[in-house]
Every structure is written in structure tokens, then in C-alpha cells.
């Protein structure tokens, strides 16, 4: 029977299933971080049980960490305590931790792929909704709650209802200045924040096939922003060559064996999906959001809609504009920007920083705009230095910060003050997401870099 890519991986991981019950699904890799794990470890202690497979569990610290002076103790007491709790839990339960000071430390969804832990055909979970990122390798990867983190620690399995399948096909060549961030913001603006709910999405089509792994990760990362359980892309030569020789990628004969299996991971021609969408790459231009959810996005030169968008309600739409300090029908271009954040699990990989550097090169940061460039991991930082990108940013008066989630979520020291506008390469523009009262505009690294120079919303194509 013809199967989708999702079904092939799912079926291979069913441990047990009773009628009318969710499936017991085996988990190949469990990634953990300091925020959503302490209560799960507590649960294990209360039950007196061990972690079933510490060898399939990897931990890092990312959400709470400062992005300057990481060699000093974390100033904020609660953040420090949460990070220390993870260190203790990893020691007590025998889990590998890439904590502060470790060369592999970084944002959990950046390090998994770059270390070769993320591989095609795997099931991967983490107590973080952006776990969908790892789907870019043709894996079933999704975010879970802390009770589920405890389930996986205890049994290396999780109870899951099988989601429906959706395929989003994008064909054609991308226009100049359009990146994968624009593709996903465009898709979400068309489908809405709830449009993917109940589905696992496969991204396909010639546009996707031509994207680098970094670009694919940006797309899969934001699957959750349309409500989808996760997103995935069939592995291909681009995937294999990215993984080859990575730290934890299979080596020698094992590589050949794995590769043979990975090559079977695609949706069969006759496989059917519960829902399909198709878009043309030619219709996508640089995007920016104007509201307080990621579906409130428009082409950068468009005006804020005067009609209530299909996926919103009148009340939510006007509440959102009021929060942002915008009026319907206004033009976004040239609005002043106080902060620029280039980072997060969406856009803090080497390719994202290369894109930003391409625009920043030979320019100066705008005097009244604060600019934060935050690599996703120590490994990305190492590569930034190897390529001399740090010199390009520094020459523009933009010092590079140290790896962490940074200003994506207002949990560590990097916060955007109330009322200030921030163009951010992260994934969420919710009220207060980057700090109480902060106003977030989501965009690509190119668009963010352009604003860093001009201090206002700028079409990045004028710099290319």
C-alpha cells in the first residue's frame, strides 16, 4: 500500500497499540533543556525510577543563559537555579549535558542537527514546541509537555494519537531577496495560526528541494505557528551531504546501511494526504508581520489590511493593532525600529548569519537602533569566526553575542523594553513575547539586517 513519508516512520516506531487508545510510540532521541525538565525528573524521583535510556537523551542549556560573559555565574537567581538543577539532574541520571562552557552548547534545535544527532527516519521529541525543526531531515519530531518528558525519560516511549497528514507543495524559483523565512511566513499568512492543527505537514515541491538544510530547518521550525504537530521534508542528497562526517552521524559501514534506509524515506507516488495546499514561489516576496500572531504577515511593501483577515476575528484583530500601535491601511515600510534581533532556533544558523552579513558588509549600524546578533551555538560561533563574519559585524559596530535563545522569548537578560519595536528573526510575535509590552515584527535575516542599517523597516532588496 502506498504510504506517506510520515506513515513510513510512524509505523516503524509503534511499540504497541490498543483499540480506542493512543499508540505507544518509540522515541529514538530525546532532547532536554533546563526549563521543561525539572518537574519531570522530580516525577521520576517520586516514583523511584531511572531514566530508561540515558544514551538516547541529550541535554543542553539555552533558554535562561545570558549571551554575554557566559564564563561568569548567571546573575538572575532563578535562572541560575534552573540551570544548576539541570546539571544535577543530568549527573544523577547519567545524561550527557552540553552545558555552558561546553563546545557543543547551544540552542537545542541548533545543536541536534549540527552534531548529526538529528537523522532521517528518527522519532525525536523535546519539551519545546520548535522541535518540529528536526523534521527538515525527514524525521518525525515534535514538541511535548513536561508530563510527556517524564513519560519518555521513564519509558523511552510516548502515548500519541496519530495526526492527519497534510502536504504543502511549493514549486518554482524564489525571487531575489526571498529566503525560507519568507516562504514560511507567507504560508502561515495564507493558512492561519490554526490551519495546520491536527496535522503533520510534509513540505514538498521544487522550491523546497533546492533549499539548503539550514533553510529547510527554518521552514519546519515554524510549522507549529500554523498549529501543526510538526513538519517534515523527505531527505535527499542535500541532507546526506550535510550529515556526512558530522560528530554523531553514522560512520563507515554503518553510514552505508543507514543511507540505504534513508533512501526509502519519501512519500510514495500514490500516497494520499488528508489535506493538500500548493503555492508558487513566484508569488512570495520579503515578508513582515504587523500583528500579534505569526499569521498576521504581509509582503513588506504592502499595507496593513483594512478588512479583517479571514483567520482572525474583529475583536482579536483590533486588539492586536492597538497593542502594536498600528492603524489598518498603514504602510509598513519606513516605520522606525528600535531593536533588531538576529538569532533564535528559527534563524541563528551559519547560513542565516551569512545572509545578514551580506547586507551588513561595509555598512554602519544605525545610531538609534540596538542590534543583537546571537549565534545559535558554540559551533556556529566557531564557524562565524572561521569565515570572518564577526569582523564584518564588528566593523558595522555590531558585536556578536554568545549562544542562547536570547531575545526570542523574554526569559533571560535579553529583553525588548515595553512599547519598543523589534524586527526579529525569531518565530513568535505574541504580546510580550520579547519582554512585557514589547512589539515584535517577524522577518527574515535579510530584512532584519537591512533595518539594522537604516533604523526603519526597509526592503532588503535595495541592498542586494
Amino acid at each position, binding site marked *: 500500500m502506498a504510504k506517506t513519508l510520515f506513515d513510513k516512520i510512524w509505523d516503524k516506531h509503534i511499540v504497541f497499540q490498543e483499540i480506542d487508545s493512543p499508540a505507544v510510540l518509540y522515541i*529514538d532521541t530525546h532532547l532536554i533543556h533546563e526549563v521543561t525538565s525539572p518537574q519531570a525528573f522530580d516525577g521520576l524521583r517520586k516514583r523511584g525510577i531511572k531514566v530508561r535510556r540515558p544514551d538516547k537523551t541529550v541535554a543542553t542549556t539555552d533558554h535562561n543563559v545570558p549571551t554575554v560573559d557566559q564564563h561568569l555565574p548567571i546573575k538572575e537567581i532563578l535562572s541560575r537555579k534552573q540551570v544548576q538543577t539541570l546539571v544535577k539532574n543530568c549527573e544523577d541520571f547519567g545524561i550527557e549535558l552540553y552545558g555552558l562552557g561546553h563546545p557543543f552548547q547551544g540552542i537545542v534545535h541548533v545543536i541536534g542537527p549540527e552534531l548529526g544527532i538529528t537523522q532521517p527516519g528518527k522519532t525525536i521529541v523535546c519539551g519545546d514546541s520548535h522541535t518540529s525543526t528536526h523534521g527538515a531531515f525527514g524525521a518525525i519530531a515534535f514538541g511535548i509537555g513536561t508530563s510527556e518528558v517524564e*513519560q519518555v525519560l521513564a*519509558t523511552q516511549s510516548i502515548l500519541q494519537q496519530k495526526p492527519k497528514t497534510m502536504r504543502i507543495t511549493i514549486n518554482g524559483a524564489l525571487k531575489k531577496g526571498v529566503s525560507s523565512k519568507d516562504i514560511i511566513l507567507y504560508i502561515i499568512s495564507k493558512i492561519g495560526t490554526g490551519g495546520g492543527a491536527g496535522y503533520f505537514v510534509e513540505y514538498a515541491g521544487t522550491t523546497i528541494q533546492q533549499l539548503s538544510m539550514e533553510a529547510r530547518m527554518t521552514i519546519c521550525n515554524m510549522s507549529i505557528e500554523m498549529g501543526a504537530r510538526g513538519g517534515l521534508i523527505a531527505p535527499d542528497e542535500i541532507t546526506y551531504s550535510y550529515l556526512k562526517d558530522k560528530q554523531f552521524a553514522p560512520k563507515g559501514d554503518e553510514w552505508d546501511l543507514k543511507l540505504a534506509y534513508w533512501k526509502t524515506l519519501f512519500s510514495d507516488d500514490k500516497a494520499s494526504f488528508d489535506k493538500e495546499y500548493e503555492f508558487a514561489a513566484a508569488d512570495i516576496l520579503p515578508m513582515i508581520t504587523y500583528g500579534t500572531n505569526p499569521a498576521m504577515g504581509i509582503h513588506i511593501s504592502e499595507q496593513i489590511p483594512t478588512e479583517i483577515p479571514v483567520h482572525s476575528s474583529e*475583536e482579536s484583530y483590533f486588539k492586536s493593532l492597538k497593542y502594536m500601535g498600528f492603524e489598518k491601511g498603514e504602510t509598513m515600510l519606513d516605520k522606525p525600529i528600535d531593536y533588531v534581533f538576529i538569532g533564535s532556533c528559527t534563524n541563528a544558523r551559519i547560513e542565516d548569519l551569512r545572509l545578514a552579513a551580506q547586507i551588513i558588509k561595509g555598512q554602519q549600524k544605525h545610531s538609534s537602533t540596538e542590534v543583537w546578533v546571537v549565534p545559535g551555538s558554540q559551533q556556529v560561533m566557531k564557524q562565524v569566526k572561521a569565515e570572518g563574519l564577526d569582523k564584518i559585524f564588528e566593523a558595522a559596530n555590531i558585536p556578536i553575542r554568545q549562544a542562547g535563545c536570547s531575545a526570542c522569548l523574554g526569559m533571560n537578560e535579553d529583553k525588548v523594553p515595553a512599547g519598543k519595536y523589534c524586527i526579529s528573526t525569531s518565530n*513568535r510575535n505574541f504580546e510580550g513575547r520579547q519582554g512585557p509590552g514589547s512589539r515584535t515584527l517577524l522577518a527574515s535575516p535579510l530584512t532584519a539586517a537591512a533595518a539594522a542599517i537604516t533604523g526603519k523597516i526597509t526592503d532588503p532588496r535595495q541592498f542586494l
Partner: protein
Amino acid sequence: MKNKFATVIDTAIPLPVQDIDTDQIIPARFLKAISRDGFGKNLFRDWRYLKDNSLNPDFVLNKPDYKGSILVTGKNFGCGSSREHAAWAIADYGFKVVISSFFADIFKNNALNNGILPIEVSDEILSLLFKKINDDHQLSIKVDLEKQVLSFSDRSVNFTINAYKKMCLQNGYDNIDYLLSKQAHIQKFEKENNQ
């Protein structure tokens, strides 16, 4: 073992906003605790309190006329992050039931794992419910999990819930008890798949 879910008859608190994300339910700066307790005081923190930390009198939780253990909210409730702290905050505040026309996937799971019953109704029923609560703040709502029936005024509507989840709620079981009982299967799977 968690508390067993029994029939709820109570008044409700209406929050007719669509797409309420988990950052509104509990902002990230309150996620630094290492226990599950005490999140209720920061539930809807930035809507509930003004900038000077005084109570926002316009927010529904601060209006004395509205009380109850049932929260009625707009479509796509709980979208965004996977933080279970959102469900802990709702439970800790005292809510037992959340009614909406749509819940985000991860939130729904997290709610069920914490003994909160998320009930999905049609957009039409949701609008009617908001109207009825608006007309009578003391409107009594009955949630019968056994029969899977939600009743208010002269209306009774059925709701769906997965049979396994229902059994867990009614008996106070959790998934770990279930998974631990399947350890032999897990071991067999690992052996057969060279894991």
C-alpha cells in the same frame, strides 16, 4: 494517581478572545520554577495586572461578578509554546474545565495530563454560551463527563473525548502508569529493532 474528575456544576468565566497563546496564559519569565506549584498567581499575568502591578479592573478575572471553575475562551486556545506551565497555571488557579471552539494540540494534551477537561464545542454554541453568560453572570453550567454532555439554560450538547483519556480522567490515572505497564513490549521492541 491524580484527582478523579467528577461531574462539574458551576458558573463560568468568559474570555472571548481568539488565539490566546501560552505566552498570555503564563509569560516565559515565570517559567523559572523547578516545581509544579504556584503558577496560578501569574495566570494571564500581563492582562490581569497593570504596569504598576496593581490589578487591572477591566480584566474578567478581577471582576467580582465572575466566578467559577469553568473557563470559556475564544477559538484556538493555548496556541504557541509547549509549556505545560500553562496547564499548571490554569489548574492551580482553580479551573477544572476549559470550553472553546478549538484547542491547540499540545495544550489540549497538557490539560488532559493535568486533570483539566478541555471541551470543544461548535462556533455557534460558543457564541451562544458567551451571550448567555453575558446576560446572566451566574449562569449555571453542568459538565457530565460520564455522559459527555454539556448543559446550560435549556441547551444540552454532546462533546467528544478519546475513550482512553476519559478513563484516565475519571480514574485519576496518568500515562506513565499505563506506559510502565507496557514495559515488556518496549523491551521486545528495542530488541527487535537493535535499539
